[in-house]
């Protein structure tokens, strides 16, 4: 085999594998978005489909948006009932019944096997009682379908996230959850960036007795698993009356964290010492050197730390579960879980829409700051 041909074969293999994995990694996202744009009955139908559709068929001769209820297997007729309790109603009867009681029914039209029972699509909230839908039985050829995205699932999902359409439930607006999540994330980001920059300066650019020992202790705290801290931390926040407020979720960020101190210290150490020395000779205070020289040169690391913390705070589940007690203090993540656990797994279209809304800010942030992200992760994973 020539080496050119061998390399062409290997490229085919490489691209095939990449495409296969891409499909596997992408499919869950597509499934999420496609479910969020379907009407409820299409989420509960087989075979599974990625494409949200709308179906149309003539009902009593009028083109109507319909749901496909079930296929009719026997030949028969759609009739109007003439006698008895059901007089005046429209029914489907099979041929045998029609032949047995000829006088009871007025045939509207006949039905061949393989036809579909369809009903007018009405928008009901779950459990609500509305007008009975019109229905008819039509041949397969009479059904037309096209792609339709139900964007109105989104506002409805967000409303039901806050208990909007359930009578007797405490109602909290989606905007309250969003506000809580943003409060926790933004105050946390500010705290993380400010506190860790100051602390890291102390470790990176100042020489003092005990510094290295203290830094070693700092690094050691990184290995303490959160479950070890959980019980006493709960006690601390309880003692300060902070349980049920957002404070335990962002306040600790203002007092440094080992990982971010480490990350910033590494970066600060790469800034030439001569810059600081020159400023010291000019009589600058350490604070001024930190604020005027180090910080302006450190944007990349500050952005990485800010992004990481935003994502961490936005995504966090355990801490909100631990500390938040009232629904109006829930973060979006906790609200989503609480919605799912209260409504069971029926309204998948709303659940997926609400999940998509929870994911969106992180994805947008990531797309804007991709390079910073990737670089940040590559450095954190390979330095130790």
């Amino acid at each position, binding site marked *: 085999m020539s080496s050119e041909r061998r390399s062409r074969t*290997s490229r085919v293999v490489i691209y095939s*594998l990449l495409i296969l994995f891409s499909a596997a990694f992408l499919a869950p996202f597509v499934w999420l978005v496609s479910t969020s744009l379907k009407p409820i009955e299409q989420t509960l139908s087989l075979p599974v489909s990625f494409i949200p559709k709308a179906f149309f068929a003539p009902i009593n001769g009028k083109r109507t948006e319909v749901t496909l209820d079930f296929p009719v297997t026997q030949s028969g007729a759609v009739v109007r009932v003439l006698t008895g309790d059901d007089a005046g109603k429209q029914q489907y009867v099979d041929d045998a019944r029609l032949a047995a009681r000829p006088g009871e029914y007025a045939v509207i039209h006949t039905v061949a096997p393989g036809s579909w029972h369809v009903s007018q699509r009405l928008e009901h909230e779950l459990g609500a009682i509305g007008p009975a839908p019109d229905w008819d039985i039509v041949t397969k050829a009479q059904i037309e379908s096209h792609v339709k995205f139900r964007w109105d699932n989104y506002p409805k999902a967000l409303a039901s996230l806050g208990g909007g359409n359930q009578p007797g439930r405490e109602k909290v607006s989606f905007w309250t959850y969003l506000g809580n999540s943003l409060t926790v994330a933004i105050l946390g980001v500010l705290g993380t960036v400010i506190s860790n920059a100051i602390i890291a300066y102390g470790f990176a650019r100042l020489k003092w*007795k005990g510094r290295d020992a203290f830094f070693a202790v700092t690094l050691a705290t990184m290995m303490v*698993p959160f479950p070890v801290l959980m*019980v*006493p931390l709960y006690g601390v926040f309880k003692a300060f009356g902070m349980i049920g407020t957002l404070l335990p979720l962002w306040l600790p960020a203002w007092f440094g964290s080992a990982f971010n101190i480490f990350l910033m210290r590494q970066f600060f150490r790469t800034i030439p010492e001569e810059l600081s020395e020159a400023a010291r000779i000019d009589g600058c205070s350490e604070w001024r050197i930190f604020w005027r020289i180090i910080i302006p040169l450190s944007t990349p690391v500050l952005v990485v730390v800010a992004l990481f913390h935003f994502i961490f705070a936005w995504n966090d589940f355990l801490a909100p579960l*631990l500390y938040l007690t009232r629904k109006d203090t829930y973060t979006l993540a906790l609200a989503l879980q609480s919605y799912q656990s209260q409504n069971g797994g029926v309204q998948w279209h709303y659940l997926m829409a609400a999940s998509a809304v929870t994911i969106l800010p992180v994805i947008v942030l990531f797309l804007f700051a991709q390079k910073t992200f990737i670089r940040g992760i590559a450095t954190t994973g390979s330095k130790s």
Partner: protein
Amino acid sequence: MTRGEKKQLRSGLAFTSLWIIGLGAFTAYPVIASLYYSFCDYSILKGPVWSGVENYQQLVQDGLFWKSLRNTLFYAGLSVPLGTAVALGLAVLLNCEVRGKSAFRLLFFMPSIVPVVASAMLWLWIFNGEYGLMNGILNPLLAPFGLHGPAWLADPAWSKPALIIMSVWGTGNAMVIYLAGLQNVPAELYEAAEIDGASAWQRFIHVTLPVIAPVVAFNAIMALIGAMQLFAQAYIMSEGANGNGNASDGNPARSTLFYTIYLFTTAFQDLRMGYASAMAYVLFIITAGLTWLAARLSRGRNEDAI
């Protein structure tokens, strides 16, 4: 200490003062308090009462403790090697000068930043036995053999494999790290190997792997530490799929009762905080052992790099 040294010490402490408070209040105190509680009978309603090693003695005899440990080890023992293999495989593929490399990297990485609650909802739906995507794909493939897909999260035999499959989806973070590591492999090494007639596989085994192995080992152990603390996905999906209103039982049939879930339930639902603290310390010791291993491996790596 000279005056200059004192002044330096003062400014050093001033800059790190926030951390001194933070370390004390949010790490040091909890670590010590937790150790003390682990020797106590303690609920948050009532102060701790010293009970010696009773908690630890009970732990050894607690069937649920061992169950949760076994479940956790099963999950960690499969999800970490699988995730590492996929991450490394993808990194190697992307390192082959492919077109659209950054688009692929973006796609593979994206799942790892999805909020865990949202990805739990998504996979809960994917693993739905009746209408989920997973069985929607599997059933037509299995039908010729007279089989059909399992109920996944509602089936004790398949609930952990479902969580493991989901964890592989989030392995993009490691892939980015490995890709960065691969790009540090000197090109001359590959050229030399190629001249010697080494095949692609031989080049991977003899050139790539030795350079990247310490990075992989270090990150795999970090992933193992993370997997030992699995909580959110299991907590949410166990209830979501079995819906009995109590998320902490590890349903179905306690097959998803993981270590941290049992710890959380013991502490915050049964209010047995002393017992939970003893569990926390056992986890701490396991984690410390793994960290020590990771530190050793990464030291080995630095020596290699010279």
